[in-house]
């Protein structure tokens, strides 16, 4: 029998029972039917390919299931003796199974995506131009996701001697990278580095080494914008990672299936090299994990990082030895052999010492980092509580939410005089970090996050604790033109001449009936006033209100008006804008004051609500209430956030009432 004929015969043989075909074709038929049904309802939020989490999990799940179905014969002694006694090359059986499994997923996947693409192309005119590219990309991406999980399954079955070790191996490969990065290295970074905020390399690694995260990134999971999804192409790193996962796993499987010892069936591993590799990787992970767990719960990093490093290494080595012992006990069941691989154990302990030690020793270098070449960098900066509402500020403290900080780090990127001012401001801030996180307990006013953007695209993030003096010194940065141009962006007059100018005092809105020239004048006056803006003035007063500029092009700008913006204020007064109107000028019908006893930073605590409706009480409260919308600088001009009020304000023009959320001044 020729090799080709033999391969085809074994390919047909792999299909005996038709379980693979039934599973894959069944899943894709059901999914295709559901996808078309959902596309029939709404094509804006439903996606059959990229952007769909369901197909991601179907492909990953089929990878797992089909790998076990196709290659389960490698774990069945009777079947294996039967196959291997026949005049057939072991590799032909292996590769025919591989092709059978792959084809039975790739073909129905392609057909299903093509049908969905054709259907949406016919029914959704926006999608039509993207039909071919989106379908093609989806086939490639989800095919790659299937292959990653399929190849993991094949490798673990080839090197395992029984189904339990294969299942445990699958779990280990799938979650190893995630645990190593998220539960070990990031925990080390958080504890050893006082100025840790983010380490992009570790974040990239956490995706690249974790097949689930990588698949989610490849599949555009979490994306909702239709155009973004249609145009989505995964970044090169993720594509390279997916290709590497597939090729490396398949390569290892191909070698392992040749070297595999049939007689070791029933044992944990069929290859001694696999046994050694697993021992090395698992014991190192266990050692590091135990160390990071101690570092996280002990709180010793606050007092003595070097001591923490030593203890972490000690715990790590102990864990390595224990896990190595247990693994050898489970695998060999021969007590004479226990701890016999001395060099291997030395390497494992060395790895734990090196990694744990690198964090302990490198912590000072990390915290004292200051770019040597200051010419080619741009600096992104965000200070918690500065240029953000109290709600945003609270979300940073309470939920550790990075959204606002990340937004500011992208917006507040300084490369000129602002950068010079930041670089001049930073040395004293960095110097104080050596005091460690004990500064967190007292004296810390807020935190500043710095992002060093290097010319080659690399980024370095640091989070510094800053005290009141540092914040005052930050005025030198705040008052630079570059920083102010970002905080209060200059608006081009021509772009907003047709826009609506709406005055808001945080309670009600008034549309300004002004000419195009008047609009230009307001914008120019605002630009002039911003030039004279200082931190000192912001500490003293709250804004009077703001002008929302809504252009017909859909753009929205905002001009914040402070009492010391003399030119802007005088112009607005000239247009009869009630800029000095405050809550005390409105008729307040009733008032609801919720007193939160706890500090807002805790997020917990008892609270009680009081209702006021007597004119005397309301009048008293009116004088000290500030609409939430005017609370734009909670760090510079903090209000009393333990009292959240809701004022029921009567609008005499419409005879209606509106509820206005407020904070009190004191």
């Amino acid at each position, binding site marked *: 029998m020729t090799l080709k004929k033999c391969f085809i015969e074994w390919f047909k*043989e792999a299909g005996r029972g038709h379980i693979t075909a039934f599973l894959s074709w069944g899943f894709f038929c059901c999914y295709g039917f559901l996808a078309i049904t959902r596309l029939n309802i709404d094509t804006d939020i439903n996606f059959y390919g990229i952007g769909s989490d369901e197909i991601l999990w179907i492909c990953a799940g089929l990878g797992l299931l089909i790998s076990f179905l196709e290659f389960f014969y490698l774990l069945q002694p009777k079947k294996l003796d039967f196959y291997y006694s026949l005049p057939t090359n072991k590799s032909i059986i292996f590769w025919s199974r591989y092709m059978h499994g792959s084809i039975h997923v790739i073909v129905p996947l392609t057909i299903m995506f093509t049908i969905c693409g054709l259907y949406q192309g016919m029914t959704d005119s926006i999608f039509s131009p993207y039909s071919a590219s989106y379908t093609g990309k989806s086939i490639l991406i989800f095919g790659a996701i299937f292959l990653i999980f399929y190849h993991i399954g094949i490798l673990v079955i080839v090197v395992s001697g029984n189904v339990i070790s294969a299942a445990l191996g699958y779990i280990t490969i799938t979650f190893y990278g995630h645990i190593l990065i998220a539960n070990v290295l990031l925990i080390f970074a958080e504890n050893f580095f006082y100025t840790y905020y983010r380490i992009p390399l570790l974040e990239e690694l956490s995706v690249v080494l974790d097949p689930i995260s990588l698949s989610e990134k490849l599949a555009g999971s979490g994306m909702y914008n239709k155009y973004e999804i249609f145009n989505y192409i995964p970044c090169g790193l993720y594509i390279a990672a997916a290709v590497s996962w597939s090729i490396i796993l398949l390569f290892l499987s191909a070698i392992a299936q040749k070297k595999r010892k049939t007689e070791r069936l029933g044992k944990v591993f069929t290859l001694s090299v696999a046994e050694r590799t697993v021992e090395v990787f698992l014991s190192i992970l266990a050692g590091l994990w135990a160390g990071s767990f101690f570092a996280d719960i002990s709180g010793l990093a606050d007092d003595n990082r070097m001591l923490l490093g030593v203890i972490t290494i000690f715990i790590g080595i102990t864990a390595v030895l224990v896990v190595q012992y247990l693994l050898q006990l489970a695998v060999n069941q*021969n007590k004479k052999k226990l701890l016999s691989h001395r060099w291997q154990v030395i390497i494992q302990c060395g790895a734990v010492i090196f990694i744990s030690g690198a964090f302990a020793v490198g912590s000072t270098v990390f915290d004292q980092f200051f770019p040597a070449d200051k010419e080619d960098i741009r600096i992104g900066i965000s200070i918690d509580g500065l240029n953000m509402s109290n709600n945003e500020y609270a979300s940073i403290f309470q939920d550790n939410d990075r959204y606002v900080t990340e937004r500011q780090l992208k917006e507040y990127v300084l490369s000129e005089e602002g950068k010079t001012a930041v670089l001049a401001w930073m040395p004293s801030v960095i110097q104080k970090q050596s005091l460690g996180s004990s500064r967190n307990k007292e004296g810390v006013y807020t935190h500043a996050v710095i992002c060093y953007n290097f010319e080659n695209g690399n980024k370095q993030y640091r989070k510094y604790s800053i005290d009141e003096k540092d914040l005052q010194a930050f005025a030198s940065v705040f008052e630079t033109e570059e920083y102010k141009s970002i905080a209060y962006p200059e608006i081009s007059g021509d772009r907003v001449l047709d826009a609506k100018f709406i005055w808001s005092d945080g309670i009600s809105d008034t549309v300004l009936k002004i000419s195009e020239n008047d609009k230009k004048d307001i914008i120019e006056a605002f630009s002039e006033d911003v030039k004279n803006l200082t931190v000192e003035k912001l500490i003293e007063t709250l804004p009077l209100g703001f002008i929302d500029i809504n252009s017909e092009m859909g753009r929205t700008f905002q001009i914040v008006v402070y009492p010391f913006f003399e030119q802007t204020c005088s112009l607005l007064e000239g247009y009869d804008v009630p800029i000095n109107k405050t809550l005390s000028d409105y008729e307040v019908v009733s008032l609801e004051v919720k007193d939160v006893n706890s500090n807002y930073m805790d997020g917990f605590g008892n609270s009680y609500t009081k209702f006021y409706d007597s004119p005397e009480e309301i009048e008293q409260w009116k004088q000290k209430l500030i609409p939430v919308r005017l609370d734009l600088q909670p760090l510079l001009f903090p209000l009393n956030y333990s009292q959240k009020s809701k004022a029921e304000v009567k609008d005499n023009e419409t005879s209606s009432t509106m509820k206005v959320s407020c904070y009190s001044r004191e």
Partner: protein
Amino acid sequence: MININNLVKYFDDICAINHISFEIQKGVMFGLLGTNGAGKTTLLRILAGIIEADEGEVQFGNKEAAMLSTKEKVFYLPDDPYYFPNASMQVMLEFYQKSYPDMNSDSVGYWAEKLNLDIHRPIRTFSKGMKRQAFLILALCSGTNYLLCDEVFDGLDPIITKIMKNLFKKEMEERKFTIIVASHKLTDLEDICENIAILHKGGIVTARDFKETAKDIYKFQCVFSPEIKPEDLKSRLNIVKCQIDHRFVTLIVKGNYEDIKKILWEKQPIFINEVTMSLEETFIAEMEEAGYDIKKVLY
């Protein structure tokens, strides 16, 4: 001819096959005898190319066991053969036909009908004996030059065992091919195997034609007069075993029949009777002569 040369196989620390060397001539039925764990199945699996030896080599003619051209000529029948779920004899026949081009489907049908086996019925519904018969038919009709059978008679009732042995004999009469049968019972092998090798703890104790050996071993039951001491015979006869019960003496003697008889008659025995020896007795005697406590191997 199968040439097994210095074969060694370890399973971790256990030596399953320990430097085994012997030859199996073409066209014979060769028995592999040994207790459980003696290394019979391991040896057969190495011969079938399923596992590889750590040392040594196995050659079928001039070709190695693992070569595909060799495997085409070898059929391995394990003690519990694998069959596809719901597969019938017909399905297995079709599958084997793809691997063994000389598979004779007519013979399979003939033998199945003779033994009342429905080739379209799922094998899983067969009794243990029927399954063994079914696979033995498939193995014998595979048209291969070598057939490796592992404990094919184990657990079968005497009638089925007889039927299966007849199958072997008839097929051997029709075409000369080499069969190796592994068993832990000598009775399974003595009436069908010309040559038997004994495996014990991975090593080979002996490998030879015991029927040939039996020609030179004789058993006599005698009663001599009181003045005759059986020990006196030892100097003149090659006594393998001598059992004395009062005056009743049982002798197992090796040598020329006429010479033995002449020496015994010279002693004027009161009673003398020659007893026909079973192969097992011959076997045991031979082994004990060689210094092995063979009963430990056999029982």
